[in-house]
């Protein structure tokens, strides 16, 4: 091979370097572009003023992010609350309980659930889940939990099915497979000799799970939960159908609301003034910052802990 080969070799090298560095370039680019596009709104409303203002009035050109941040946080936390127990249960079932001939099909099924695009979840939520919520589940909740003092305010109002609760349920169904598959991988890393020792001294299956498997793999579960949180924070289509896009902070889970993603999806093409569009870019920047910081911090924590010890 002569000179020709070394030239194409160097070219190839240069192309791989450029491609890899494009990731850094894109991330910096996203940050820079979103910042410069939202500069108008940043100057107008400031950071604290924007985040804490409940105003969202396109007519008077006044915008604040508090309602959408509220919606984003509430739907994400509720979705995690619903999803984590089910997902970890699935992972335990697949790794520790199910016989071999059940394991593979269930695993594949869970992964397929993860592959279904979010718009399918959203549409299914609008046409199928939302009527069920409005007709049965929400009235039932109102009749029971709604009568309790204090907790009752969460279940006030007329159940329409287009509200925070329905959106959170759909989000939770979406993130279950994500948490389940990552937890399953973590469970599979537990050395079987440790488990066998526990069985050997007479532990029941649940005791092995509770005292060996879960402590051993808590880091993996944590990683899965954080990833799922990132997914839930940024999910658009699954919630866009059933949240109602109403900029308000409510105490009832039966009220319509808005998340950052939903208001971007609904209003971006309608923004008719520069301040309006700039405020939407500002929302996008805030969402970008939140997800970047959460995921970055989580990844670094996991790596540090992994280096510190196998657990």
């Amino acid at each position, binding site marked *: 091979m002569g000179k020709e080969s070394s030239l194409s070799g160097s070219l190839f090298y240069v192309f791989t370097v450029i491609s890899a560095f494009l990731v850094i370039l*894109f991330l910096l680019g996203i940050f820079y572009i979103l910042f410069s596009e939202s500069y108008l709104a940043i100057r107008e409303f400031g950071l604290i003023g924007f985040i804490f203002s409940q105003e969202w009035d396109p007519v008077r050109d006044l915008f604040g992010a508090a309602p959408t941040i509220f919606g984003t946080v509430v739907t994400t936390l509720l979705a995690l609350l619903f999803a984590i127990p089910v997902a970890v249960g699935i992972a335990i079932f697949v790794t520790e309980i199910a016989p071999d001939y059940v394991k593979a099909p269930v695993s594949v099924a869970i992964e397929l659930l993860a592959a279904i695009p979010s718009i399918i*979840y959203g549409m*299914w939520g609008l046409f199928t889940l939302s009527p069920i919520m409005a007709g049965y589940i929400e009235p039932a909740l109102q009749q029971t939990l709604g009568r309790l003092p204090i907790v009752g305010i969460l279940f006030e109002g007329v159940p329409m099915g287009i509200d925070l609760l329905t959106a959170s349920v759909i989000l939770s169904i979406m993130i279950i497979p994500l948490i389940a598959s990552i937890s399953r991988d973590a469970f599979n890393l537990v050395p079987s000799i440790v488990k066998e020792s526990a069985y050997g001294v007479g532990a029941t299956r649940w005791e092995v799970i509770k005292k060996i498997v879960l402590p051993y793999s808590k880091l993996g579960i944590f990683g899965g939960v954080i990833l799922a949180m990132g997914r839930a924070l940024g999910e658009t289509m699954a919630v866009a159908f059933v949240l109602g896009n109403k900029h308000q902070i409510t105490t009832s889970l039966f009220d319509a609301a808005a998340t950052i993603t939903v208001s971007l999806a609904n209003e971006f093409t309608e923004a008719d003034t520069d301040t309006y569009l700039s405020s939407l*870019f500002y929302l996008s920047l805030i969402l970008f910052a939140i997800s970047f910081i959460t995921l970055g911090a989580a990844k670094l924590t996991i790596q540090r802990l992994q280096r510190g010890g196998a657990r």
Partner: protein
Amino acid sequence: MRPYRRRRIENLVAISLCTLSAAIGLFWLFFILIDVVIEGVGALNLALFLEDPVPAGLEGGGLRNAFVGQLLLTLVAALLGVPVGLLGGTFLAEYGRGSRIGHIISLLSDIMTSVPSIVIGTFAYAVLVKPFGHFNGWAGSFALALIMIPIIIRTTEEMLKLVPWELREAAFALGASYYRVILSIVYRGAAPGILTGILLSIARVAGETAPLLFTSFNNTFFSVDMNEPVPSLTVTVFQYAMGPYENWHAQAWAASLVITLFILIITLLGRFIIFRRYGKWKTL
């Protein structure tokens, strides 16, 4: 130690709860899938693939424009994203292996995979729509490519690292340059895994809606001009499902069925390739 009987009961309850949650998870999967199939099959007909939409409110018509547009957007995104992802992953696994910068880029790719897709959409809007003053297909494909790149980078990196280092050394010993070794030895060994990564990234973007809403937008007419708004199935489903007409809803279900089947088949194919190569279902 607590009495044996109590421990057995606790065990039974906990195991039952875990089994129950697996059942709940599977219940949702079948509920959604069966619902999409039942509602979708009813509206599935040849006209859906062969005819363009009729004016709102009228019966009939199809979504030929959206099918073609979706394929076009995805194809262009793959043409943009696959080479960059492949080469970037090669750098991380080969030239940059073990280096600090390689490590950082790898971490950033992981984070970029999780950047909300709608944020990427707003970025593409600012870069490729605003300066030109109108929605266009390039912006949509660019946004999709941005989603694909980090996925392909990471899967390629993982797959190349699975190729034993000794294989490379054997080739070095024969006098091959690193570039030759990568092309003829490493890529060949990792080909199935790389292909699966590409397939999974296509499956991921084929169902994306949010980044297309204000980039490629939508178009009720048949158009393959990437300089104009390009219709896509997913955005059409969003508009039709939110719209007031019964036949829109029916077509949205049918389109959803086609998207879902397409994505599930690609995903299964990717898993199958990995299964053939490594003998087990590996998660990527």
